[in-house]
């Protein structure tokens, strides 16, 4: 492996996590060579990443955590499949128009959605219950931003509660950009975030159109709580990782699917 010049910490973190996904276990030396950093730096990086639930430090190196996304905090889930998420949000220009009122629920894909909106739109009214997403939206200088009041869940860094759902219902939105954890042509949209489901349903009720934004890894998955059927969706946006076969199957359920190859 080529010895690179030392990278920024954030880049190192990304590289380490990606590498561990492939190799499952890696030694300090391997990771040091991968990132061009010293072993001491790698030790500190690993301690940090372990603190955030991204890996486990073991004797001599680190091991990746199992693919149990529900155990990972919101911030760290954002690293997974980031390039796929960035790819799919670009397609949103098909449905988002300046001047609209848009709702964004809590979900790591919507971090990329928010970045996309801020970079490409001048005037939008946006509501979200997720305060990290709100932080990004704040950089859109002319956006009107709305937050539905509620109790903060520190792991998701988002607001929840009955009142929160009622407040959402008091608005009307043109479009909901819905980040989900599991899509299946048999079971529809399902999720493991119990509290978020009430919020999602409130957003869906208040929005004229509903677009799911989900990278290919979310497809053909089922989580233990039902959200809604595919027939309640207007659009699905995904990345080029979705196979032709998958696109066909979901299209047959009557949903309009956008990927870079299809209608994108």
């Amino acid at each position, binding site marked *: 492996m080529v010895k690179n010049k030392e990278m*920024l910490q*954030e880049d190192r973190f990304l590289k380490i996590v990606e590498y561990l996904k492939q190799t499952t276990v890696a030694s300090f030396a391997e990771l040091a060579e991968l990132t061009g950093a010293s072993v001491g730096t790698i030790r500190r990086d690993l301690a940090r990443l372990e603190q*955030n639930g991204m890996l486990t430090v073991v004797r001599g190196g680190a091991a990746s955590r199992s693919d149990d996304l529900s155990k990972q905090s919101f911030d760290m889930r954002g690293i997974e499949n980031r390039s796929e998420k960035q790819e799919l949000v670009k397609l949103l220009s098909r449905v988002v128009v300046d001047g609209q009122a848009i709702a964004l629920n809590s979900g790591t894909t919507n971090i990329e959605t928010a970045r996309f909106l801020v970079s490409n739109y001048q005037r939008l009214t946006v509501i979200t219950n997720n*305060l990290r997403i709100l932080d990004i939206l704040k950089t859109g200088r002319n956006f009107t931003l709305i937050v539905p009041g509620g109790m903060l869940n520190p792991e998701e860094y988002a607001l929840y509660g009955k009142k929160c759902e009622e407040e959402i219902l008091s608005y009307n939105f043109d479009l909901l950009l819905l980040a989900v954890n599991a899509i299946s042509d048999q079971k529809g949209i399902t999720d493991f975030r119990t509290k978020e489901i009430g919020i999602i349903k409130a957003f869906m009720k208040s929005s004229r159109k509903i677009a799911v934004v989900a990278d290919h890894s979310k497809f053909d998955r089922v989580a233990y709580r039902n959200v809604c059927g595919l027939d309640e969706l207007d659009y699905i946006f995904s990345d080029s990782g979705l196979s032709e076969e998958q696109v066909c199957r979901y299209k047959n359920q009557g949903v309009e699917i956008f990927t870079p190859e299809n209608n994108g």
Partner: protein
Amino acid sequence: MRIVEYLREKKTAKLQDIAELNGVSVDTVRRDFEQLEAEGLLRRVRGGAVFHNADITTQKVGIRGITHREEKKEIAALTDQFVADGQTVGLTSGTTCLEVARFLAANYRRLTVITNNLAAVNELAEAGRFTIIVPGGVVDCNEEAVFGDTCEEDILSYNIDVAFLGVHAISVEKGITDFRINQVSVQRAMIQSAKKRIIVADHSKFDQVAYVNTCGLDEVDAIISDSGLSHEVYHKFRNCDVDIVIPQP
């Protein structure tokens, strides 16, 4: 600005790379980064910069330059005589309440905090031990706070043990006044919902009058300020029967 576009795309940038891209020296880039950081467009890190919302590990809200920071810390330290573990605390917007939030996060085990101050929410959430409630409404990006009718209604629906109000102007004649028209009604809602109402203001806010009235001094239980408050001003307000708390010399 090429640098900001680059960062928007790549999220991180090394001094070296930008220097090569723009055909300038690393020192020039370093100065550019300083400038852009001051404008809030990026955050400098060792060796380069990150697009200020791309920080995946700490995700801290950017803290703009805080004036009178030491005074605000003094004030925050004095709030402990008003707050007990397990209570419900209200905090309004502004950097003084942000320091109060930091102090509470570091010194209390259990609290319920109701606040429209989004920067304070960040500090309190990191502690991980508190119940944090944010009233809904429109976000004022400059104030980093929520405001509006919904915000006020939400606050009024709670019972708060003690509310700390960060204000901009205190005067003997006019009481508490403010420039931030959006925040005044939120403050009034806090005053209505709270058993104890404590003003937190550094010495520069005294003997000031702004164009919107918040409340009279009689609606306030105490004012906490810093060691910079002059004897003269202190006594002037004490003579009006206002409880002023400042650090012991």
